[in-house]
């Protein structure tokens, strides 16, 4: 089942009966004061003219040998072969209540082999209709030696190529049989687009972490939780990675993409008196290109304090009752909302998979959201308004340059996120073919940006929310500040709904005061939710995270300003029946290790 899951925060709008006063496209008749927006897109200037890494040379030799031999000896010769090696080095340090919990490093090198038999028009990758076989989402991934020893590397590549070739052969037989016995497909575009081959060599990524210093920092940052006996669990986690993705194909592509990344996460957990589990994770200002670029001590301390204050407040906050009414989604919450309800549904492969809901497959050229909204996804952007983006890459996992995909212009659907699997009307990839090692490439989001043509101030947006509350005779509206995750079902077999799990939700009363509530779930359907967007502010925020779907976990970002929706529906969250701990927390020992 093609279910797109995401670690991103997600949010939802309600698809129930619309308020007649808000029928039609409300955005155009809003009279909100305009305020200028600032959306500085920084494009990276990656240096792809470094010397060719030795590993690529070794892989190319084996790739060419296998391609030639298979063409000579097999009845169904491959028309395309590619090798992708991913070399990842990481350091993870976690501290809790002032003490180190873990400190480890890891290094691995994986190999994924793609074999295509048949023709670009119809090959072994073609979707099998009527068969749900999640095994097809996975490759026969192998671990490569960390050292570039030719015999050791080539032996692994040879066996992996053999395994993938055997599977490709079998799959093609099934694809042809499937096509013969079923009705004609609606979208007959090619399985593999023709693209130019690139050469691009970056210096392989390396990591240098002063572990003792980061351990000391993590310990220090986690100390304030000690003074809060109601917080049962908490952690400050530092993670740094250096990753180089090597790619070579029989079309002549030969490249490597190097990336370093660092992140500090702050998270804590408590139990409310009624047994509800509460967790607060602060994801703002968490990411940097390298450990040196991470936010300052003071910034992390501020995040720790925010988590403590919020969690203590959540414990005392009233549990929410089911409710429908107007709401504001703050920037990062709105960004996740778009990632879940829109981004996953414009992934190219879903448009031709007839088991998919295909919410947008036939909507090119038609309005899908209010006319003041543009949405695009651009892997080539490195930072927005100074915030580094998690979804940046110069080339995707099929060796295609990461390009801006224009998705929505003036509210009208213009395109999809595309890998080399073509979609009706779109013959070429726009560099969105992505995967985690061990998975087959499909089109995925990278850096999703919601860019309204008209923006107002956050204050005016809130005033408009209050006006809506009064007009709809509601006791209050809602403001969603932070969401921990969500998921969306995109297949036809299930309801086309999404569900997201917000943490920081406030009731906004007509007099303007706000009250935190807990235990909120948000559900809805995508088209209805998008049509209810009324206005956007000029306060862009970026959510950096990782997103999981058929092709595994990939780093992504989503950027949006706060948005106002005319109606949203919330339900009560599932609740654990566990009691809080019976004994009080042990007294914090004075003079614990700083």
């Amino acid at each position: 089942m093609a279910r797109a899951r995401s670690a991103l925060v997600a949010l939802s709008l309600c698809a129930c009966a619309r308020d007649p006063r808000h029928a039609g496209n409300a955005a155009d008749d809003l009279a909100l004061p305009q305020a200028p927006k600032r959306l500085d897109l920084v494009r990276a200037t990656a240096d792809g003219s470094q010397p060719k890494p030795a590993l690529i040379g070794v892989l190319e030799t084996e790739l060419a040998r296998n391609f030639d031999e298979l063409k000579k000896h097999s009845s169904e010769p491959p028309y395309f072969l590619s090798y992708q090696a991913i070399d990842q080095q990481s350091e993870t340090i976690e501290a809790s209540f002032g003490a180190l919990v873990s400190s480890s490093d890891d290094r691995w090198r994986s190999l994924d082999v793609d074999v295509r038999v048949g023709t670009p028009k119809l090959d072994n990758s073609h979707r099998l209709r009527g068969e749900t076989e999640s095994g097809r989402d996975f490759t026969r991934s192998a671990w490569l030696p960390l050292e570039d020893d030719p015999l050791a590397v080539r032996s692994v590549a040879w066996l992996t190529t053999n395994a993938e070739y055997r599977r490709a052969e079998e799959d093609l037989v099934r694809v042809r049989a499937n096509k013969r016995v079923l009705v004609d497909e609606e979208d007959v575009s090619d399985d593999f687009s023709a693209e130019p081959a690139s050469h691009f060599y970056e210096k392989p990524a390396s990591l240098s972490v002063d572990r003792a210093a980061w351990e000391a920092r993590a310990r220090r940052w986690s100390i304030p939780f000690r003074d809060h006996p109601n917080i049962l669990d908490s952690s400050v986690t530092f993670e740094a990675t250096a990753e180089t993705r090597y790619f070579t194909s029989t079309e002549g592509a030969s490249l490597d993409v190097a990336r370093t990344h660092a992140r500090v996460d702050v998270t804590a957990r408590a139990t409310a008196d009624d047994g509800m589990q509460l967790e607060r994770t602060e994801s703002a200002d968490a990411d940097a290109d390298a450990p040196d670029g991470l936010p300052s001590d003071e910034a992390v301390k501020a995040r720790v304090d925010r988590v403590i204050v919020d969690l203590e407040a959540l414990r005392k906050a009233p549990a929410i009752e089911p409710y429908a009414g107007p709401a504001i989604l703050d920037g990062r919450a709105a960004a996740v909302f778009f990632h879940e309800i829109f981004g996953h549904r414009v992934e190219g492969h879903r448009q031709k998979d007839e088991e998919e809901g295909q919410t947008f497959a036939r909507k090119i050229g038609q309005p899908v959201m209010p006319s003041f909204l543009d949405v695009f996804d651009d892997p080539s952007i490195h930072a927005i308004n100074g915030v580094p983006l998690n979804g940046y890459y110069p080339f995707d996992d099929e060796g295609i340059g990461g390009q801006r995909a224009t998705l929505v212009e003036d509210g009208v659907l213009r395109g999809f996120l595309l890998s080399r699997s073509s979609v009706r009307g779109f013959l070429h990839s726009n560099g969105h073919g992505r995967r985690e090692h061990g998975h087959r490439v499909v089109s995925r989001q990278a850096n999703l940006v919601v860019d309204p043509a008209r923006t107002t101030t956050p204050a005016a947006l809130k005033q408009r929310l209050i006006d809506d509350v009064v007009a709809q005779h509601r006791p209050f509206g809602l403001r969603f500040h932070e969401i921990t995750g969500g998921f969306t079902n995109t297949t036809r077999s299930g309801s086309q709904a999404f569900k997201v799990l917000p943490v920081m939700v406030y009731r906004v009363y007509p007099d303007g005061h706000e009250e935190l509530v807990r235990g909120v779930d948000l559900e809805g359907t995508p088209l209805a939710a998008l049509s209810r967007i009324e206005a956007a502010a000029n306060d862009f925020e970026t959510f950096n995270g990782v997103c999981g779907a058929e092709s595994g976990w990939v780093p992504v970002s989503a950027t949006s300003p706060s948005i106002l929706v005319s109606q949203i529906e919330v339900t009560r969250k599932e609740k654990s029946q566990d009691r809080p701990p019976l004994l009080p927390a042990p007294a914090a020992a004075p003079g614990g290790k700083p």
Partner: protein
Amino acid sequence: MNKLRRLVAIAACTVPLLGAASTPNPDAPILEAMKDELARTTKDLRLPSAGAPYYVGYWVVDETVRDIEATLGALVSDVVDRDRFVRTELRVGSRAFDNSNFSGVTADGDVEGDTEAGAPSDAPLDDDVSALRRALWLASDAAYKDAVETLERKRAAKESEATPHTEVPSFSDERSATLTVKDEPVPDGPDPADLARRVSAVFRGFPDVDKSSVHVLQSAARRRFVASDGGLVVEPSRLAALEITCETQADDGMSVERSAFVASKNGGPLPEDVATDEARRVARDLVALKNAPIAEDHSGPVLFEGRAAAELAYELLGDSLSGTPAPEGNDELESALSHKLGKHVMPSGFSVVDDPGLSVFDGAPLIGHYAVDDEGIAAERVTLVDDGRLKGFLMSRAPRQGIDHSNGHGRSGLVGWARGKPANLVVTTKSGLSKKALRERLLEAVREQDADYGIVVTELEPRTTASSGDMVPTPELLYKVTPDGKQTLLRGGELASLSVRDLRDILAAGHDAAVYSFVSESDGGLDTAVSVVAPALLFEDLDVRAPTGPNKKPPLVPRPTVTGAK
């Protein structure tokens, strides 16, 4: 008397502890945190509607594991993991009937495991008393709530039984140990990553081997135990082991595999010469297997030699010798030998002992060594079979009919209640034959049965879990021996099922014994390292089956060759 003894013992163990605080003791902050929380838990932890815990034991286990893999002379991974776990053993009810050893069946018919009980949780790596106490506090809270609920369910399950189990207490009346084992430093050997590279490079000379890998596992652990009965244990342990695996395909596509396991003495440096010889040996075996004829269905005498005999002995005896009663609600874990005490279970002359105190047998390292088991009970050498008769069981603190006490074989790994399990299981016989005489005895049996040939198995596929008896391992090396004494390697033969009953039909055994050791993957770490020693074993009549199932086609592309030395 008992009470007095306990008081004296508590006093005895309190004194050295107080003394320890004034001298530099690396365990002091950890033991302090454990004792602080133990006191709070035993005194104050209770729900209004339920009783307080009557016994609490804490383990804080440090483990540093270096895991290295190499192939064809190149490193594939080299990871060091440093972990500290907290494990709690918390009992509510009474010794007569408590929350332990229960796995009920839910309304859906699923067996509810007891794996949640005592499940380890992460503890801070720093010796920070307040952070450690916090970890113990949360673990105790979860364990207590689980214990109260489990006790209620166990009681309900018992009340619904038509014929209740025989009344044996849940928990033995004895005291856990007070012992600090000194850490014996081991000499530095060569860098294990280099060792893995060098041993794996042996396979560069064997182009017929498709895939090979050398795994080195080096681990150092420190277990600390504090219990509400005054028990206090600190025990360090080390392990170094090297595993070699290789596989290839025969021309007909059948996959063939070989493996070897090399352990060091007391966790010291791994013997590189032994490892290199083993790598060469398994590589040669594999090439021979690739070209060997296929085994056919056959019945007749089968001789297990070397490590195959030791592994088979574990397979048949390992779980059956456990004296821990089956969990309430799950009779499947009942030992096949549970009603055989005093009866013949093997031919006369055989004896079986288990001795966690051994670390070497006839010069070969044994890895099941420990001083104190996972319930804090000092390990004892136990005679299980004497002159063919069953004399005892491997006991944890769960008593059984006729055996009230543990003999220090309660092993849990990191999860679940401890059960009686082997550590260093040693099978011997008084009337062992020389290798040559045993082969002659095999041929004699072939002639007596008018069979065409006999079978000799020298290697079985290595085990990956500590739980035995559920399946018979597949032979890696199986030979047919014709009456003229000619030996032919066969490929793909499988053994039909064997059970502990078959041990009574052993025709003859060897004089020399071999050691088989393994580390259970499922539980991880040192706690389930096991060694087995057994002589060659000749069975009168076993079934061997020809291989079944389709083979994968061999690769179309020949393997890569790279000229020039590494």
